[in-house]
């Protein structure tokens, strides 16, 4: 795993940036080079949000990518727009709670994660992004669960225990 290029996309509010940022942070803790680049500006207004994460063993020249080892889509427009970015044989994660359509490509590994339903089952649909994050970590091993939990400790420091528990549960909910 010299360099992993990842792309996350969904509606604003679905927490896709948070998925990317957690992976980037965890990879950094593992001593990797990382870049995280969110989309920005008013196109985010009630529209879509996306971000690019690169994790590498060596220094990263450009934070931009045009093909990815992993694409995660949280809504339908994202699937339609970004499926083509996945490199052959590489990963596509689809939030199947929101997206009823299937991927069209067969040369890639597609995982359907019913993230919202699982999160709802845990008590809060908002944790859907954590479910997706867990699925990605479990399936790709791009970072370890340990690192992610370490990140969560930092980012949730001071939050209510119930929130922390919910998110930890969500992280491990998919399999």
């Amino acid at each position, binding site marked *: 795993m010299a360099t992993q290029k990842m792309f996350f996309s969904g*509606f604003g509010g679905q927490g896709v940036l948070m998925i990317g940022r957690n992976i980037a942070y965890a990879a950094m803790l593992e001593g990797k080079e990382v870049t995280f680049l969110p989309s920005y500006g008013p196109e985010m207004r*009630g529209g879509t949000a996306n971000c690019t994460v690169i994790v590498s063993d060596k220094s990263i020249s450009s934070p931009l990518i045009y093909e990815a080892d992993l694409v995660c889509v949280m809504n339908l*427009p994202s699937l339609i727009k970004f499926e083509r970015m996945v490199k052959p044989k590489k990963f596509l994660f689809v939030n199947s709670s929101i997206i009823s359509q299937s991927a069209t490509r067969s040369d890639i590994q597609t995982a359907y994660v019913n993230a919202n339903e699982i999160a709802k089952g845990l008590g809060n649909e908002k944790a859907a992004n954590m479910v997706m994050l867990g699925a990605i970590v479990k399936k790709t091993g791009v970072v370890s669960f340990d690192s992610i939990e370490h990140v969560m400790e930092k980012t949730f420091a001071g939050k209510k225990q119930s929130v922390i528990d919910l998110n930890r549960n969500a992280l491990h909910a998919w399999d």
Partner: protein
Amino acid sequence: MAKFLVKFNVDKCKGCELCVSVCPKNILALSTTEVNAKGYHPASITDMDSCIGCASCATICPDCVISIYAE
């Protein structure tokens, strides 16, 4: 028969629910199932017969979704 016809330009609706909130007859609602081209649950009328044609819904709709006709 309904005295008024409330029409929705479904694909323009952004599901903001403002129309729903101002209808004096409480006969508007967002669809819980349908998703329009933009990905929103659009508003629609649940009971055309009760409509009094007050146009409150159309007046507050920020996205020119609603037209209202009499008879």
